[in-house]
């Protein structure tokens, strides 16, 4: 019954101290979110507004995207449309090739992870530098992010110290975060000054003005786009918002939900190209438009990518981002992976205790946990239901449908209490791994009822 997730989680949990640190640190981020959200009495109103604006935009995407394109073009930007990941990669490469770009600087973009941009460009001979500190650390280590907002949350300071010593020549054995951060600042400053083109993701694309809004704490997107006059931004088409007024809602929710800050340090609005430069905006579909037709899961397109669902998830916190088979982990990742390809990613749906905490913290009120439950119900239809579980539920059905057999089985249950351990906890009992069976009562409720042993008032 073990899924790829549970096997990978087992590996993650072997380093007990690290696993405990991961769990506690993410919980601390969750607590910061709780504290700051409670300081805003209109918090729940904002979550409702966010959900309603997203539902409006996701049901009016065609007109809003065209409006965005018109306004962005009027502002002087060049707008591209990419059906899928391949077209997105080709568009970026063509722009860079036309301008003979060799040194390319990027700020964090989950879309570029989704579409495999970096390996593609590097193979073409372009020096791609990730400028977000966490992403830069991972780039040095040749690892993918394990969280969408805190990409290097699974890496210890000593590991960063070692890799910086090798790549940046920092002092041996110095793993002080301030020292290491400032070493990266110095090294990346050089990249910022000499890059020939810069690329950013996009948190919000404003239909009524053509603005691309990018939120960061480090200022890496801003530094990146400040020297090269060739700038590229790419967005999944659900990033569209109708107007600036709606940003009042989203900017109040995003950082509070993500890290417990009142707003990100930088909320930058890109409207016109740099003087004498070019501004390219790539609108990417890559399966999003098809999700619109799925009434159970269309709300996944409400996601602001804040990561709050990961920070609160008891399974994510105790299994780490790499335990999931999709590049986005946690509750939103489980759902997005199933929306992408249920046959390929079905291992992730077990990574959920159905506690629904994710649904409670989501700033856009996506019913994340409820949707995972729905995916589980569909597993059989895609041929991915667990065989063992099917046998168990088949057997259970057989017994429950036959009252005599059921009562007989109940009478026999206490025998399990005195059955030797080796017969109960062995390779055949997956459930018993890491769990203890409860003690079966000597008498069933049914028998007790019949013997009039159940006392107390019956309330009607």
């Amino acid at each position, binding site marked *: 019954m073990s899924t790829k997730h549970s096997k990978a989680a087992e590996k993650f949990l072997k380093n007990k101290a690290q696993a405990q640190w991961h769990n506690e640190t993410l919980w601390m981020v969750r607590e910061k979110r709780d504290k700051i959200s409670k300081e*805003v009495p209109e918090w729940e109103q904002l979550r409702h507004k966010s959900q309603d604006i997203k539902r409006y935009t996701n049901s009016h995407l065609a007109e809003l995207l065209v409006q965005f394109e018109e306004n962005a073009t009027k502002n002087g930007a060049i707008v591209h449309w990419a059906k899928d990941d391949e077209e997105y990669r080709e568009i970026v490469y063509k722009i860079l090739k036309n301008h003979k770009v060799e040194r390319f600087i990027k700020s964090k973009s989950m879309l570029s992870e989704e579409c495999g941009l970096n390996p593609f460009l590097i193979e073409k001979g372009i020096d791609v530098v990730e400028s977000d*500190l*966490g992403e830069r650390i991972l780039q040095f280590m040749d690892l993918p992010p394990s969280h969408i907002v805190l990409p290097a949350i699974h890496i210890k300071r000593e590991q960063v110290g070692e890799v910086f010593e090798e790549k940046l020549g920092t002092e041996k054995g110095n793993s002080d975060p301030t020292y290491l951060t400032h070493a990266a600042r110095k090294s990346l400053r050089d990249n910022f000054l000499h890059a020939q083109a810069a690329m950013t993701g996009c948190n919000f694309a404003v239909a009524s003005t053509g603005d691309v809004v990018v939120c960061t704490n480090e200022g890496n997107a801003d530094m990146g786009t400040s020297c090269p006059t060739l700038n590229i931004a790419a967005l999944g088409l659900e990033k569209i918002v109708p107007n600036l*007024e709606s940003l009042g809602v989203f900017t109040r929710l995003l950082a509070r939900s993500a890290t417990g800050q009142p707003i990100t340090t930088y909320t930058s609005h890109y*409207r016109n190209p740099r003087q004498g430069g070019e501004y390219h905006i790539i609108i990417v579909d890559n399966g999003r438009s098809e999700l619109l037709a799925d009434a159970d899961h269309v709300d996944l397109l409400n996601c602001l990518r804040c990561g709050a669902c990961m920070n609160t998830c008891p399974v994510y916190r105790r299994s780490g981002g790499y335990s999931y088979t999709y590049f986005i982990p946690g509750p939103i990742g489980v759902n997005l992976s199933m929306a992408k390809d249920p046959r390929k990613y079905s291992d992730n749906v077990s990574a959920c205790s159905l506690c629904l905490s994710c649904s409670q913290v989501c700033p856009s009120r996506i019913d994340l946990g409820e949707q995972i439950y729905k995916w589980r119900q569909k597993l059989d239809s895609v041929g991915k239901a667990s065989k063992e579980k099917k046998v168990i539920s088949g057997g259970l059905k057989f017994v429950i449908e036959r009252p005599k057999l059921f009562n007989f089985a109940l009478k026999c249950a206490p025998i399990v209490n005195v059955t030797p351990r080796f017969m109960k906890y062995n390779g055949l009992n997956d459930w018993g791994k890491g769990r203890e069976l409860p003690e079966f009562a000597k008498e069933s409720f049914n028998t007790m009822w019949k013997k009039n042993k159940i006392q107390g008032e019956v309330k009607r």
Partner: protein
Amino acid sequence: MSSRESILESIKKHTKAKHEMPSLEIINPLTYADNIQAFCDMEKIVGGTAHVLKQGEDIDQVIKTYFPDAKRIGSVLPFIKCATYNPNEVEKVQDLNGTDVAVVQGKIGVAENAAVWVSQELETYKAIYFIAEALVVLVDRNEIKTNMHEAYAWLEKHDYKFGAFISGPSKTADIEQALVFGAHGARQVLVILT
């Protein structure tokens, strides 16, 4: 069919239930007895410093007090006398690197998160907002909005090429969630309320 057309076609084909745009009116939002005080308190929380200019106090003097060792101070504002150079007059944008303090004019501030809106009107290079070791932003104390709703209502009426809400100094916690100021942008931010 172009990709543009096929994407729009696919959206139209797959869109089911239509939802209306909600009213964005917030009932009983968080307000402050004094927006200026709330802004100053919040600036401290986000890692910056707010200074309310007293009557007769000189801006240049204030900047010098906060940054006594600054050698290279850049500002396009003609009334900033302590500036040692004009960032619009550098030969190339890279020459802005090595600026100790940049002094710019902010348009509005926001009490709930200490963000100030800086938009590129006077400056040739937006780099100046990010590249300096310290950033000084001047904001009219009568232009402190309560929250982002008010800030965006103001922004709807104003044009810009590039603009940013900046809330405190550049920061990161990417190494073990330890907070460090000065990731890539300014290490220090001083907002002077004029």
